């Protein structure tokens, strides 16, 4: 060997570098997202379409003289069935979209072939997943905003509670909803045909969490089961905040379980991710699609 001059790496490890890497993931996701705006149509159509079937059915159930509606108001304590239903369906769509977007974040990268490139860098790997969550929360906020706008304009739905309390409920739900998404995202990488899980989870939310009805109307065993789903508390709390003028104190019975589930699902999400990372390193599953 003649000269053995070894180039010095330009990379500088450290917390700051990891933060920058995380921001780069957020930025990349955002650029790609805004560059292909086909989602705009979906953004305006779905908030309207999905609740519509339930709303129109509820309208028929109300009866021409409003006799059914009177029963509904007596059982639920709600004044307005449209608002009542929209809260439920919005939560369902939120979880559904997170399962597809965040849940398939890694899988899509795997299919694009870029997952390995990311995995080759010395960045904290959980940032890839966390970083995709940022833009997803922004679009979700837009989605909820559009829902409110559409139903406010077209159906004259008005909030009579505090928007802050409503926001608080949704904020408190983020760990649980996204934790589930993280766990799912890791599962999809190693377990093929994981789509079935999306159908399972969103089916459970649909059946048990009271998206169009009060949970109290369910048979006892179903009510017990519903207690184990964070979405139940979210829907209940959001309805209370939006239409019953509930304050923090009234919302605590929903907030506390919601946050506890959040801690649980975030932990599950994180550990599933670690498990997947190790497993994929053994089996080479990262590079396959």
């Amino acid at each position: 060997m003649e000269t053995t001059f070894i180039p010095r790496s330009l990379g500088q490890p450290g917390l700051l570098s990891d933060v920058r890497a995380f921001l780069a993931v957020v930025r990349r996701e955002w650029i790609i997202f805004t560059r292909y705006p086909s989602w705009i149509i979906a953004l305006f159509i779905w908030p309207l379409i999905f609740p519509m079937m339930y709303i129109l059915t509820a309208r028929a159930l109300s009866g021409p003289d409003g006799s059914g509606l009177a029963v509904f108001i007596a059982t639920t304590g709600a004044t307005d069935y449209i608002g009542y239903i929209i809260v439920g369906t919005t939560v369902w769509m939120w979880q559904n979209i997170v399962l597809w977007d965040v849940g398939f974040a890694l899988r899509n990268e795997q299919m694009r072939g870029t997952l390995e490139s990311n995995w080759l860098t010395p960045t904290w790997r959980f940032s890839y997943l966390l970083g995709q969550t940022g833009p997803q929360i922004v679009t979700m906020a837009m989605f909820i905003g559009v829902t409110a706008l559409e139903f406010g304009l077209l159906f004259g739905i008005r909030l009579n509670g505090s928007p802050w309390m409503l926001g608080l409920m949704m904020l408190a739900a983020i760990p649980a909803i996204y934790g589930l998404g993280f766990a799912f995202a890791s599962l999809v990488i190693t377990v093929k045909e994981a789509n079935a899980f999306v159908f399972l989870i969103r089916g459970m939310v649909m059946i048990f969490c009271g998206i169009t009805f009060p949970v109290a109307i369910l048979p006892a065993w179903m009510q017990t089961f519903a207690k184990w789903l964070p979405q139940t508390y979210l829907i209940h709390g959001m309805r209370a905040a939006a239409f019953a003028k509930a304050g923090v104190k009234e919302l605590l019975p929903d907030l506390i379980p919601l946050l506890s589930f959040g801690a649980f699902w975030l932990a599950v999400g994180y550990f599933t991710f670690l498990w997947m990372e190790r497993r994929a390193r053994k089996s080479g599953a990262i590079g396959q699609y």
Partner: protein
Amino acid sequence: MSQFAVEACQLVKKFPARPGTGDKPLEGEPASSQRKRRRLFGKKEPKAMFTAVNGVDLQIQYGEIFGLLGPNGAGKSTTIRMLCTLLEPTSGTAHINGYDIVKQANDVRRSLGTVLAGERSIYWKLTGRENLEYFAALYHIPPAIAKKRVDELIERMELKDRANELVEKYSTGMRQRVAIAKALLARPPILLLDEPTLGLDPQAARNLRELIAQLKQEGHTILLTTHYMEEADQLSDRIGIIDAGKIIALDTPEGLKRRIDRKEIIRLEVSGWQDYIGEKLRAMREVESLVARRQNESDLWEVNLQATDSRVVLPKLMESISQNGTRLVNMNIVKPSLEDVFIHLTGKALRD
């Protein structure tokens, strides 16, 4: 600390055998040991294992270009994947720049620039520049340095005119250059290149080989895999020939060729080749190996024959070939190339 840039010791990688892919469990060894362990945990039947890399030893000096040469499925990519920390070896150890690939994975990643086979390692929906800026952050390069480095690499890879266009509009060659620029971003001391010229046209491949030679001049250690003989011959300081997961020869290109110095290589082009002719010739004592392969779908066959004494072989050869519609089209007696070394070692051609 080792004094080697890349050092691998008895690397082994086993995969669960995938049914229907023809991956056969090698040498029947996994069965007993695996079965015992699984039984302890009350697990289901042991899976058949397929050994993709089977005890690879490598010692690559700083500043060296090392070529890993082998046919499809030899285990080249699997070796690279283990070295760049994407895969964990089943057994054995390896060190990159002195760091253990399992225990010090992040330090290894910092020391490496890797180009994996295939052109899908970058985001097609970002521009070339955006890709590089993104990966610069992921390689932990501070923003000020990153900006300069990205500009520099765009210039160097001749991407300047189209750096702000989406990668999906690039040609294969341009995508490959972005992928290489990405690997060079952190100016890592060691580069792993898995089939870097795959899919490039001859001109682009030549440019890339020039670049690789330059990178060596700049002090990078390079491990590259390829199944192009000329490429390995031209670029590498040393070559490891890998087949069925094992390194079966390791030497300088000259050293490898010297091994079959005294052999004579006869290269024939034959139309209407029949397998039985091969059988007949192989039976001759003077014929060491014979490989026939069809030239892209035509009726023309290329036959590579290694003999100890061509004077004995040639008459017999002519005789058996000019029968039953078989016709000799072209014949050369050539100097041994790396490919001939490969055929000599394995009895089969590098590319089918």
